[in-house]
């Protein structure tokens, strides 16, 4: 149950240098996103963001599209845990927070994006960059109520390799995987490296490094990463699959074939990835056929 006011007395904080972009009609999304992106070092204006996030007939922007748009600028969009504490932690770390609030009521909502830049503890008020107001002051109860209607949705845009103030492993890895999927390899590599330092036992972070190197065309490092995963978990079917693919790409069809068979054996018939594994095997067999059964081995 969310408290109306923050859980513990908080010191005043205000990120006064946060840029201010007075919004145009219905375009609080682009304005708010431009604010947090600019603060994290990206030179972007709301106008540049409009084509990517504005929905004309809904006169607004969807949260998912704000998230997707951030990735283009090599910033990790990270959705905070839905608590006032997480919001304060970001402010104290020097990062303004993009929030969604409903300034209307549930039946007649008026959804609005704003950026929290501070808190005045004497008056018990939040300071927001909001609409055409550089410093909109909202009482804590009012803020928590309107923000609460969005499920306490809040996000920050992180520079590559920077962890959020309250890092959640699953959420951070999801964010890193989002960068990987978007092809933002430099940022993804930095994100996975940061994940490795925060959660050294995470095989997913290590796998992510391998996958991102693969996408980048760096097969050698990808292979090393996959082998590192397998050193920790020799029956890791996904790592075996991806290693098999790398070996095939290198022309080491003999090893590739053996590796994918290991993957299939490790995964079992009803594995979630049975289709991908079979697809990889088919690829390897096809290439083997092409090479007229020349089983190339790449022993060192």
């Amino acid at each position, binding site marked *: 149950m969310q408290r109306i006011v923050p859980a513990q007395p908080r010191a005043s904080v205000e990120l006064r240098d946060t840029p201010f972009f007075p919004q145009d009609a*219905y375009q609080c999304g682009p304005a708010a996103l431009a604010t947090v992106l600019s603060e994290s070092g990206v030179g972007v204006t709301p106008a540049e963001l409009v084509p990517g996030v504005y929905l004309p007939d809904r006169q607004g922007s969807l949260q998912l599209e704000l998230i997707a748009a951030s990735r283009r600028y090599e910033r990790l969009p990270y959705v905070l845990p839905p608590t006032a504490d997480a919001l304060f932690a970001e402010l104290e770390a020097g990062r303004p927070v993009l929030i969604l609030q409903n300034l209307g009521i549930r039946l007649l909502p008026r959804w609005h994006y704003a950026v929290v830049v501070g808190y005045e503890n004497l008056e018990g008020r939040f300071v927001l960059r909001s609409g055409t107001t550089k410093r909109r002051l909202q009482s804590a109860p009012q803020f928590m109520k309107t923000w609460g209607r969005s499920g306490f949705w809040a996000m920050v845009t992180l520079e590559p390799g920077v962890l959020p103030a309250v890092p959640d492993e699953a959420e951070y890895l999801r964010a890193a995987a989002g960068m990987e999927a978007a*092809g933002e390899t430099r940022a993804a590599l930095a994100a996975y490296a940061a994940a490795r330092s925060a959660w050294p036992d995470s095989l997913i972070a290590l796998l992510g490094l391998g996958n991102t190197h693969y996408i980048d065309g760096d097969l050698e490092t990808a292979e090393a990463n996959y082998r590192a995963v397998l050193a920790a978990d020799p029956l890791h079917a996904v790592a075996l699959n991806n290693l098999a693919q790398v070996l095939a790409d290198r022309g080491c069809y003999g090893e590739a074939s053996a590796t994918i068979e290991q993957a299939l054996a490790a995964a079992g018939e009803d594995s979630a990835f049975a289709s991908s594994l079979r697809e990889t095997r088919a690829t390897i067999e096809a290439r083997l056929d092409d090479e007229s059964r020349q089983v190339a081995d790449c022993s060192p």
Partner: protein
Amino acid sequence: MRKMFAKRFVVFNLALSLCALGVTHPQVHAGIIDTGMVLEQRDREHQVARIQSMLAEHAVHSRLVSLGVDPLLASERVARLTDAELLLLEERMDELPAGGDSLLAIIGVVFVVLLILELVGVTDIFKKI
């Protein structure tokens, strides 16, 4: 047998129409199982998953266009979303909030109700933002 043929026919046609739309997804990297797939425990090579993804891309693209987004732009926007985000949008786009301060047309009784709510501090609609 017929069912499989029908399914392949649908997939083939979808693929054609998606190509015509110019929807390209950067994340389909032949061969490797990417990290997103692992986190979602969702195999993109699986027949059902593949069809679901195509349908979602198509549906979200159409919806964006119907909401006034230029079709080429819509393709770019769709391409930026992850698989999971696409599936979520396909399912719930119309109910998800679109932040934009749009004031719905308020008339008569509704206006009075809102005014009262505003005065007792429940809403924040009429303050200058």
